[in-house]
């Protein structure tokens, strides 16, 4: 049966999460007519409950969703066996996407992140580039992206303390951040006893702690309340709309212009292209009926895994190997952050029960190129973070630090004494692309519609393990300085699905090695833009969302300025 044709629109945005839900605002303000296709529905504040089983154990926001029907598979090499498939997709569908329940951490990357290749060669020589890496400098500099970081911070609302306003260093902020044009729109999230304890310990070590920036209201902002610090923020949506997901910020503002039509429960299955290689719109299922939404411009804004998958599934005469894949670059240059941390046990209660994980203490002394890497065997480094918010199941699931068995009366006595006395230091290292790390379609595993799911081929490189071990030593040093009496380092985890996944549609000047250009538009299909961390060429040592959003705004801005040449 032929799909039902809908009236043509200027722009169809596929996915209304952190990226697509942000880009719709500048587009709508510019007067373009937008249709936003979102696989999930609307969530209400009351859907977000202070319930650890619902949010964190059973992943209720993810339940019975498109994403959960198409969980990617993973393997550690071309000939590796499939790894166990987790029961939940790391991301969710819904108007606002995973920005509904993310930690809200809203870091910028630094100048270094955008030119790692040339800076590394300049400082350490070409041999310092990890073997087999396909690392390139970004086609965008920090300076070019800075105005968009600024716009996003003010549009959604980010709480933080600047460390470098127009070159003036302020030690109460992050002294390692790159130059910014002005202060954050809201002060940093408030301190807490444990976060302050860790900040003091870092200072005694000569390090430079700061309160991490968060897309959470530290004070009332944009007619929404300040954070209640109730302690169910991680993987939980906000019941009082103090977390600045696109669902409560940019999407409603775009709807208010009357230029955005949100279509929830729209399951996009392909992007169509004509004989000239231009895209013509998106084909989607809604309530088991198929529709075709024609558009002058298509913006693909799914999560990293889905962006690659939709392109590879969208085959046509112009693109027999998948949309925008005539150079064979779709799916390549894949990388991700991997959960890595160190647990510390203290001889006193830390009172981390409440707050939010974005409230805490962070430091960048061992991130990026902020220290000499000569002889270390890796480039980059990691951000260190101690978060607040410890929910009770997680607290009781603590490491026993080799001091007790894991059940029975002795364990019960151990957790009675210690469940409130431990804390993690999390670290995220800069990750780089390698020629043998990529995404493609799984040859066997399919979703319920019969379409192959995405497959990851990725492992930890020796350079990454070295960086992770280095960061674990720094985390241990920090915890011991703060008074820890026992340390448990997490094993360097097998890499798999990640909430911080990058690449697959990399951004760069050269069409031979990149899918999109410096503006986020396809090198092959001129009216196809791609939003999301799938365009990022390096991960940075911090959470990706703010950079994804700054890039999305920049792509939208470019489209507005070049509308005639792109759309017509």
């Amino acid at each position, binding site marked *: 049966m032929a799909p039902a044709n809908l009236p043509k629109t200027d722009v169809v945005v596929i996915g209304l999460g952190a990226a697509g839900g942000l880009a719709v605002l500048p587009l709508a303000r510019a007067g373009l007519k937008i249709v936003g296709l979102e696989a999930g529905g609307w969530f209400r504040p009351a859907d977000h409950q202070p319930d650890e089983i619902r949010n964190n154990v059973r992943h209720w926001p993810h339940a019975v969703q498109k994403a959960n029907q198409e969980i990617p598979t993973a393997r550690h090499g071309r000939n590796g066996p499939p790894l166990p498939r987790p029961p939940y997709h790391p991301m969710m569908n819904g108007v606002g996407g995973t920005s509904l329940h993310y930690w809200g951490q809203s870091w910028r990357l630094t100048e270094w992140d955008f030119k790692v290749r040339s800076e590394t060669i300049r400082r350490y020589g070409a041999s310092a580039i990890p073997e087999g890496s396909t690392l390139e400098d970004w086609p965008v500099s920090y300076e070019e992206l800075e105005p968009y970081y600024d716009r996003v911070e003010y549009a959604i609302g980010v709480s933080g303390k600047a460390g470098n306003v127009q070159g003036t260093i302020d030690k109460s902020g992050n002294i390692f951040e790159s130059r910014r044009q002005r202060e954050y729109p809201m002060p940093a999230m408030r301190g807490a006893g444990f976060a302050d304890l860790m900040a003091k310990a870092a200072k005694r070590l000569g390090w430079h702690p700061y309160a991490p920036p968060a897309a959470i209201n530290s004070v009332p902002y944009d007619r929404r309340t300040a954070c209640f610090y109730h302690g169910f923020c991680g993987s939980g949506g906000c019941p*009082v709309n103090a977390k600045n997901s696109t669902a409560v910020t940019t999407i409603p503002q775009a709807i208010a212009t009357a230029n955005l039509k949100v279509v929830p429960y729209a399951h996009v299955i392909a992007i169509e292209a004509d004989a000239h290689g231009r895209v013509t719109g998106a084909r989607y299922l809604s309530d088991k009926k198929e529709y075709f939404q024609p558009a002058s411009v298509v913006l693909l804004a799914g999560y990293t895994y889905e962006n690659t998958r939709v392109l590879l599934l969208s085959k046509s005469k112009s693109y027999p190997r998948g949309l925008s894949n005539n150079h064979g670059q779709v799916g390549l240059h894949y990388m991700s952050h991997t959960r890595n941390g160190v647990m510390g046990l203290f001889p006193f209660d830390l*009172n981390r029960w*409440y707050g939010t994980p974005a409230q805490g203490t962070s430091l960048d002394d061992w991130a990026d190129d902020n220290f000499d890497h000569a002889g270390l065997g890796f480039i980059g480094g990691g951000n260190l973070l101690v978060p607040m918010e410890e929910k009770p199941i997680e607290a009781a699931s603590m490491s026993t630090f080799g001091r007790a068995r894991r059940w029975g009366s002795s364990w019960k006595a151990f957790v009675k004494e210690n469940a409130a006395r431990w804390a993690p230091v999390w670290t995220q290292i800069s990750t780089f692309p390698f020629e043998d790390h990529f995404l493609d379609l799984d040859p066997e595993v399919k979703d319920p519609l019969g379409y192959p799911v995405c497959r990851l081929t990725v492992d930890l490189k020796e350079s990454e393990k070295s960086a992770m071990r280095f960061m674990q030593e720094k985390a241990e040093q920090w915890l011991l300085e703060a008074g820890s009496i026992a340390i448990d380092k997490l094993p360097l985890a097998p890499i798999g699905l990640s909430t911080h996944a990058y690449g697959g549609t990399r951004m760069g000047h050269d069409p031979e090695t990149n899918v999109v250009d410096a503006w986020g538009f396809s090198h092959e299909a001129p009216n196809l833009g791609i939003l999301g961390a799938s365009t990022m060429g390096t991960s940075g040592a911090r959470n990706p969302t703010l950079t994804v959003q700054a890039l999305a705004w920049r792509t939208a801005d470019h489209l507005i300025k070049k509308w005639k040449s792109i759309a017509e």
Partner: protein
Amino acid sequence: MVCAFVPASALRFARTATPEVLTPQERRCLQAMVSRIIPADANGPGALEAGCAVYIESALRDAYRSQKPGYGAGLAALDFCANARQGKAFAELNVGEQDQILSEFERNTGVGEYADGAAFFEMVRRHILEGMFGDPSYGGNANFAGWDLIGYPGPRMYVSPDLQGLDAVIPRSRVTAEQLVHGSR
């Protein structure tokens, strides 16, 4: 030691769901295991008294339906081991004998033909922790026994700065998520 008082809210789920996913034999075996993972002792009610067996059986009806075969096989393996050694069901062994078998499951040793002893042990332990320390509306954590054990002061909507101090004395909220959101007690 048994809880003297269990709030109606904690029992509501169990009453309406009347779980009958497990056979009586399986249920006795699960209850015995639950009572050994977190026993009742001088530190308060154990997992059985807190309703963790009810929590698990309720979950196996819906959210954990797919894990029912794993429970069936694992519980049968516990009984098989108990029978092979003592000629009795696992639930009828003394606690020392029960702990010995559970230790072997945990280490994946001595469980004969049953290869997944450790996986079964870890799954049940994880579910017991969910029941013990999760929201009481799911059938466990009766009378907030789990939260009292580890000193979790309970969910509250608004947390003032003084409640986040290192030495803060925090009153127990003693509400479930639902009671907190809907304001009923």
